[in-house]
């Protein structure tokens, strides 16, 4: 089993997200994340779908996605040079004693302190999967209250 990042260009129409979600659920595929947004062309959206599965399963996911009329193209970025990033907001418990430590962690990872309260601070990080994982490991001992992640977004790199 390996993670595959699929970059799927779709029509920017209502119901397209439902079509993709329904196909994935109906055919029993497992996905890790799905991120979607408008592109440089306002009539198209790009979805980044992270699929967990063996090569045969991922091949089927790609072929089934390609069958959808609203899908313009499907690219498997895993097989080529690509950039991928995820945004995470992480709310962590804080005391006057631990506050400088958490700010330091954020600084080290080139993350931001997006919000600071009396009992919690919220760290915002944009990074690849390794960086996200590091942040989560480092803040874990302080007590993580809430996390929200966008899922990965990815683009092919120019060669």
């Amino acid at each position, binding site marked *: 089993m390996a993670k595959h990042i699929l970059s799927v260009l*779709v*029509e920017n129409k209502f*119901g397209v997200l*439902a*079509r993709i979600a*329904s*196909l994935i659920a*109906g055919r029993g595929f497992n996905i890790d994340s799905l991120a979607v947004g408008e592109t440089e062309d306002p009539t198209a959206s790009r979805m980044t779908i992270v699929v967990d599965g063996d090569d*045969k399963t991922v*091949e*089927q996911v790609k*072929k*089934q996605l*390609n*069958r*959808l*009329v*609203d*899908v*313009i*193209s499907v690219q498997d970025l895993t097989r080529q040079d690509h950039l991928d990033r995820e945004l995470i907001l992480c709310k962590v418990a804080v005391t006057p004693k631990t506050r400088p430590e958490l700010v330091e962690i954020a600084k080290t990872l080139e993350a931001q302190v997006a919000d600071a309260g009396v009992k919690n601070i919220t760290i915002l990080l944009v990074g690849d999967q390794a960086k996200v994982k590091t942040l989560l490991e480092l803040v874990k001992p302080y007590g993580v209250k809430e996390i929200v992640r966008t899922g990965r977004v990815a683009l092919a790199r120019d060669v």
Partner: protein
Amino acid sequence: MKGAQILVECLKREGVDVLFGYPGGANLPTYDALHDSDLKHILVRHEQGAAHMADGYARATGKVGVCLATSGPGATNLVTGIATAFMDSVPMVAITGQVRSYLIGNDAFQEADVCGITRPITKHNYLVKDVRDLARTIREAFYIAATGKPGPVLVDIPVDVSQAEAEFVWPESVEIRGYKPERFIEGHRGQIDKAAKLIVQAKKPVVYVGGGAIMSNATEELRELINLIGAPVTTTCMALGIYPEDQPFSLRMLGMHGAASTNFAVQYCDLLVNVGARFDDRVTGKVDTFSPKSKKIHIDIDPASIGKSVPVDVPIVGDVKRVLKELMKEIQALKQKPDYSGWWEEIHGWQKKHPLTYTQPKGGKLKPQYVLEVLSDLTKGEILMTTDVGQHQMWACQFYRWTKPRTYITSGGLGTMGYGLPAAIGAQFGRPGERVICLTGDGSFVMNIQELATAVDHKLPIKTIILNNANLGMVRQWQEMFYKKRFSYSAMRSPDFAKVAEGFGAKGATISQPEEVRPMLEKILSDKECWVVDCLCDEEEKVFPIIPPGKAIDEMILDMA
């Protein structure tokens, strides 16, 4: 023009000659427009009937079938028919009314999220929100339904869109950037070369043909190929008749209820050439034991069908007709006559040892297979049969000799009981000169029996033959064989079908003796009326051979002895 008039004009321009439908609140504007039109509309008695009729019409003619229904319950009644067409890749356009745009999402009277409901069972669907999009949408719907791997497309039209005024603009061409079926028509040259070499080098090939070859109208090419190479050919129930079963190269149907010799040939061959079939579980049995020693060639227009369940050595994405033409050229260019004589000897041995057979005892109960044998003998392939689902469906595959394509019309993928009669009506409208027979069971027939009224209304000479065993026969067979004879709710008492038929205005008859079969069939086949013949058969009779669920295809049960 009003939206509804635009719709009717579009249907005409698409060359639609008949619609099957049912009016209701949300499609009243469409029906109002139809009132002024010369388009032929057939009023069904249940929307499910409309969907199956459009489907039967499409399978009999190769053209796109069209059905209409209102919003909510009208549309949900189409659902089984749409799913049936989807599973068997039948080109169909379903047009449903929807509540007014501003009421959508409001739980309005007769509202259902029809696009949501039909998303997984349509090739594509549309909710038309602006009357200016209507003509283009209808054009796209027909294009998508008929091209590539065909399938049903649904167009949902709110009442206010049907009533809105717009200028009629007919789009001359269709341009959908995410849908380019023309990319998948020509097979890959290199792969076709490889396939040709494998075919001439094989010692034990089998050609396995599915519904895709019928959809592609590849009968002529397929027959040429088989006669060129002299290989055994077997078909799924979706392709019966594409190669004449009375010819020596035919191994007839394979799979769960295929002849034992055919399944042995598929299992032990060294090359399996899949032509427009999809390695369905009813064909492969336990998939990891399927035909283990063979190289596999798979020709299919749908890339997603290739490698889905069975790994393939030579995948060829393309239109069957085109690919077969190219393949034959390649084979001829190799100037190597393949020699399959040893293989044929082996197959003939199996055929002799395990013939497809049954016994009709003198003076005993009527055997359903006997009815089909007599029908086959009387009509010699010159019929168009639709069926329902269950034992009768399989006996028809086994005991009728199929010699022409598009003559056996059945719900192969979804297995929809209640399909037969409405499909027969649709097929009869599509091919008015054809002798149409609906072969059914006592369970299936009542699922859409109301359509007898439609058939009688239009004086259709359809002959319904019920193989009545007072049971859900296939369910009973599985309970007997795999559930310790615990016959849980599989017996049913049916009405007097002959009288029911008469009540509908058709002719009815009941027979129960073998000697009644031939004269009765002769009588109805030469008659112009709509007939229902109830054949009371032996309830103990089972379909053999059978591949038990989860077993390999050479682990068939041949009989109960």
